[in-house]
């Protein structure tokens, strides 16, 4: 097991739990998607895995190490994180931004070495952004920014990627482009990823495993084929849902007439 989350509880206040008894695991090479309505605790769960938030109970293991035994730099060598919203107050170049991914390997009193620059450049090449390497990050489009952040995650050289809504603010095509590239990278390099998505169809196409999160609890968890059914989705989103099989592609659609009734 690459990553194991066991009986994890989290709450911003003692009385109110955002996450309740979360348990799941992730193998190498797997893409694991968290589905759930707004406010169900998806991002919170990612942040607990990344030690951005401290769980009240429960443990997170990376390999056989409890993350509480890792310091910031050690953890950052194992786990990289793609934030949901991202901007920069300063017009750093693409290279500057990607170089930041090397921080877990750079001493506090040092600057990136030639080797770090080389690895950053390689990561930029992998996501196909070499032409824009000296362009200010702040002038890029949403899709390009995501690619730069993915390059940074690659430069970070961690085996687990946490992707908080990698498709938000992306146009129809870019959602597929970005997820396809992520999937290819994960499979080619034997990495593992946990991502949050809002689109059930994207989740079906791009993930191996799914967990459905509702009010902080996992209500269904397992391989895509087993979990992504009408009954589970209906319970998750509290709406009537139909799954169609069109030329062997499963497509999730809401029942429109039931929506207007509310």
């Amino acid at each position: 097991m690459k990553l194991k989350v066991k009986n994890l509880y989290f709450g911003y206040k003692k009385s109110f739990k955002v996450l309740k008894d979360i348990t799941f695991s992730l193998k190498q090479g797997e893409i694991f998607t968290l589905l759930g309505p707004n406010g169900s605790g998806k991002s919170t769960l990612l942040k607990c895995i990344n030690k951005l938030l401290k769980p009240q109970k429960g443990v997170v293991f990376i390999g056989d190490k409890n993350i509480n035994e890792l310091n910031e730099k050690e953890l950052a060598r194992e786990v990289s994180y793609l934030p949901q919203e991202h901007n920069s107050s300063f017009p750093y170049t693409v290279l500057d931004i990607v170089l930041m991914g090397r921080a877990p390997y750079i001493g506090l009193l040092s600057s990136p070495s030639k080797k770090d620059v080389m690895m950053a450049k390689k990561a930029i090449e992998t996501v196909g952004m070499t032409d824009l390497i000296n362009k200010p990050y702040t002038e890029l489009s949403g899709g390009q920014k995501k690619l730069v952040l993915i390059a940074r995650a690659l430069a970070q050289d961690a085996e687990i990627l946490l992707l908080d809504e990698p498709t938000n603010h992306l146009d129809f095509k870019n959602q597929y482009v970005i997820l396809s590239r992520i999937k290819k990278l994960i499979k080619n390099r034997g990495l593992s990823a946990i991502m949050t998505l809002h689109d059930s169809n994207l989740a079906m196409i791009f993930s191996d495993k799914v967990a459905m999160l509702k009010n902080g609890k996992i209500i269904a968890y397992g391989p895509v084929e087993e979990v992504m059914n009408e009954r589970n989705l209906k319970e998750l989103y509290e709406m009537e849902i139909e799954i169609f099989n069109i030329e062997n592609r499963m497509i999730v659609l809401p029942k429109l007439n039931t929506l207007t009734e509310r």
Partner: protein
Amino acid sequence: MSIIILLFILILAAFLSLFLGTFPISPVEIIYTIIGKNVPDTYRTVIYDIRLPRVLFAVAVGSGLSVAGASYQSIFKNPLVSPYILGVSSGAAFGAALAILLHQNVYVMQTFAFFFGILATLLAYFLAKEKGRVPVLSLVIAGVIVNSFFQALVGMAKYFADTQNQLPSIVFWIMGSFSGVDWDNVSVLIVILVGIGVMYAIRWYLNIMSMDDEEAKSLGVDVDKFRKVIIVVSTLITASAVSVVGIIGWVGLIIPHVSRLIVGPDNVKVIPVSILLGGLFLLIADDLARTITTGEIPIGILTSLVGAPFFAYLYHLQRR
């Protein structure tokens, strides 16, 4: 490349600044003094005990304020922040005013200014602290509170001051001047230089500190600890500078800006360029302050007088 050129210009400017001043010595005699020829003792005193410390201080304070400004702009994730945002200047001003009211000598005044500057920043810091974390927004608000509080105290000190001597002293102190600088302040110089050295060493990490806190953490940086270190070092630099030369505006805000315009936002380059440019800027400003008129123009006024139109020009250039 621009760093080597700037370094050369700075050294040259510092050397030439030794030739400037009201005491009449000819350039030839100055060179004789420097190379150690037989000259009157007064010449040596003027060059080594009056002009040289003043030149060194102008450079160090300019560099220090610029570095403190650049690092604050990073940790506050905002290019419009000055080193005074957490109240160090207001606190120092009150400290100096208090010492003046209590009829203390200049060294007590500097000590008061230094410690009240630090005190103000500490107040802002602990006001902003919540559950072991120090969010940027809370810091900004705490800075506003502390600044206005100490400004009110300065106002009160002015109100109670006698108008013959104390009030003008307070007013002149706040406007800033290098005229009181001498070798007795060498410890301040050392603190500033060490502070600059620390910032220079961690300059690449300033890039990461300018990102979102969560993002910086996910890159393996202990954000809260790092922010604390940067605030401590910047405050020591700024409080040291302000305690001896008063409040000098604009340098800490404008120089990092200009540096970014020249070399881009990467702090690996911004910090050294800020150090050199800041030193050069304040050196030239002080040269003007002590030569334009027979008296002295307060340096704080001059930096703003030069800084504001220059900044307006840069802003205009940038938007075109």
